[in-house]
């Protein structure tokens, strides 16, 4: 019997396998390493950002600013490396420092002003997007050697598929996320705050430091996702990545993380990303379905997972109630 904690993750896994099997039955080419390689490359930036979102949601919060931070990172890099003539590596370090500080500031506001994360990160979303607009409203191409080198860097899988650099970066971030979530005291603190903030505080979990770190981590990963996105598109555009935060939230929920916080796995988020990517790939393969079906199917999946979570919570509450009566 699988514990109720693992059940949503197991469901996600089964759905992913079933969906892939269905796709494979219709289009045998879906199982080729080329498709798998593209699946990872196309969703790399979303995956990196979603790992950060997983930590935020595990702590019971939400971060609406990541799409804007991705756009800001892209524009900042394109302009500083292009017109500014800043060395690429320095520009990348600089932008990661800026986004991390930005996230830490939002975390500090959430903690010290005791305001809902929703509205604080909404302000962050407006601010980051506005800053991106102020730097440039054009789509700025990126032409630096470092980008060419990284774009040409890939690992050839058997069957001709390419595991690109951004795809590998996403997998590395997921692994790092799993390690941070389950093998560090920071990870345990995140779960503790998401489970019950008051109990965590009484147990001596450093709430202020952890909250600030969570949002700093989310914005840092959004910055990293912005770099991956600029590698993927070779440009920085201030209107890019609109609504990515919603895709990331959807991926986290489909991945089986409880929206009230305290329960979930980073690995589930990777599965959520892959399921969403699979739907898009299926629509491309089919050719007759329109792209808006993606949104409707993701909406349906979101609904079924939230309903499933509610059902589990209800069941466990009933079981506890039944156990309490004889005692």
């Amino acid at each position, binding site marked *: 019997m699988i514990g109720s904690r693992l059940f949503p993750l197991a469901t996600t896994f089964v759905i992913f396998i079933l969906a892939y099997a269905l796709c494979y039955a219709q289009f045998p080419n879906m199982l080729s390493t080329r498709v798998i390689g593209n699946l990872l490359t196309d969703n790399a930036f979303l995956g990196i950002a979603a790992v950060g979102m997983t930590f935020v949601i595990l702590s019971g919060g*939400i971060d609406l600013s990541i799409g804007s931070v991705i756009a800001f990172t892209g524009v900042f890099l394109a302009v500083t490396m292009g017109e500014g003539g800043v060395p690429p590596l320095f520009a990348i370090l600089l932008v990661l420092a800026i986004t991390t500080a930005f996230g830490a500031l939002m975390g500090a*506001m959430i903690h*010290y*002003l*005791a*305001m*809902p994360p*929703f*509205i*604080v990160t*909404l*302000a*962050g*979303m*407006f*601010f980051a*997007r*506005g*800053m991106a*607009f*102020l730097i440039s*409203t054009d789509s700025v191409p990126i032409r630096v050697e470092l980008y060419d080198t990284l774009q040409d860097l890939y690992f050839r899988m058997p069957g001709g598929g390419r595991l690109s650099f951004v795809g590998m970066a996403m997998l590395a971030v997921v692994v790092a996320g799993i390690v941070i979530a389950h093998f560090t005291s920071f990870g345990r603190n995140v779960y503790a705050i998401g489970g019950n903030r008051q109990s965590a505080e009484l147990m001596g979990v450093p709430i202020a430091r952890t909250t600030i770190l969570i949002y700093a981590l989310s914005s840092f990963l959004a910055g990293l996702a912005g770099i991956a996105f600029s590698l993927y598109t070779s440009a920085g555009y201030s209107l890019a990545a609109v609504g990515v935060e*919603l895709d990331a*939230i*959807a991926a986290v*929920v489909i991945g089986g993380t409880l*929206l*009230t916080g305290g329960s979930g796995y980073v690995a589930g988020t990777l599965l959520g990303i892959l399921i969403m990517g699979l739907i898009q790939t299926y629509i491309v393969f089919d050719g007759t379905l*329109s792209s*808006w*079906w*993606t*949104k*409707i199917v*993701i*909406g*349906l999946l*979101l*609904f079924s997972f*939230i*309903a499933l979570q*509610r059902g589990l919570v209800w069941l466990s509450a009933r079981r506890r109630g039944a156990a309490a009566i004889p005692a």
Partner: protein
Amino acid sequence: MTLPTTIRRVLPQLVALFVILALNTAIAPGFLDIAFANGRFYGSLIDILNRGAPVALLAVGMTLVIATKGIDLSVGAVMAIAGAVAAALITSDHSLAATILATLGVGIVCGLWNGALVAFLGIQPIIATLILMVAGRGIAQLITEGVILTFNDPGLVFVGTGAVFGIPFPVILWVAIGIAASVLFRTTALGLLVEAIGINRRASSLAGIGTSALLLAVYAASGLCAAVAGIVAAGDIRGADANNAGLWLELDAILAVVVGGNSLMGGRFSIAGSLIGAMIIQSVNTGILLAGFPPEFNLVIKAAIIVVILVVQSPASQTLFAFMKSRPRSEEDAAAPVREPEKEAAR
């Protein structure tokens, strides 16, 4: 001061609005001019009232939802659905009355869906409405079949661009709906019951308030307001654009409600405040354009407004304000300990 409580409640918002309008007048001298031509009024002030109509309409429903400690992220998507339904029906030769009734009905159904998720399944409002926010635009595109459906029906165009006695019809719509909602919720016990849910839903339920039915009604009202805003937006451009109609307006509507002095924690609300909030946002937008700043500044200034409001509303600064207010009084108390019982009574 002997101002009526309703006015005193929205006084900070009114002051803010006047300051922004005064700034706009300082920037652009012709700002307050209103001309009358072709049977309607023209001028920057009228333009603010007219352009702010969709956000003002959304803000009415959003105020009620936020008063129950909820939030409705789906209103932008519902606007897109409503515009698509209206355009699809009118282009397939349905009458204007049938089109508008059906569109409003669709808005109510969308709201009921959100309300059912919140009231019966107990899902957090932000997540429950996220589902329709994600799927809604897909549904709208399904209805328009991926194209921008254009129409020329004079009735539907009138809703978006017409004028009655020289006043643009969208303005009349949001003022009328705002007054109707205020009367409905403030002259009856409904407003109090909605606030009770926002303060403590379980306690309200135990006290005999039909919380589920009220939550359904509040979300349905938000859906209805979104549908009206959708018809206005579609009528304005004579077409239904499933991708861009109402895009990010849910955030503007939430901002209008917060600027209007309503707490996101629920439990009290002022529809008039939210409507003034919507006008403040629109005045800032217009002011930025008049000042010759690029419109990109809009987002940064909106962010700054939210931060200022957050700092003012936060529990930490509330304690600080209370502390600064109580200090002179405590000195008074120390000087005249006789007044102790009076203070006790005030508690």
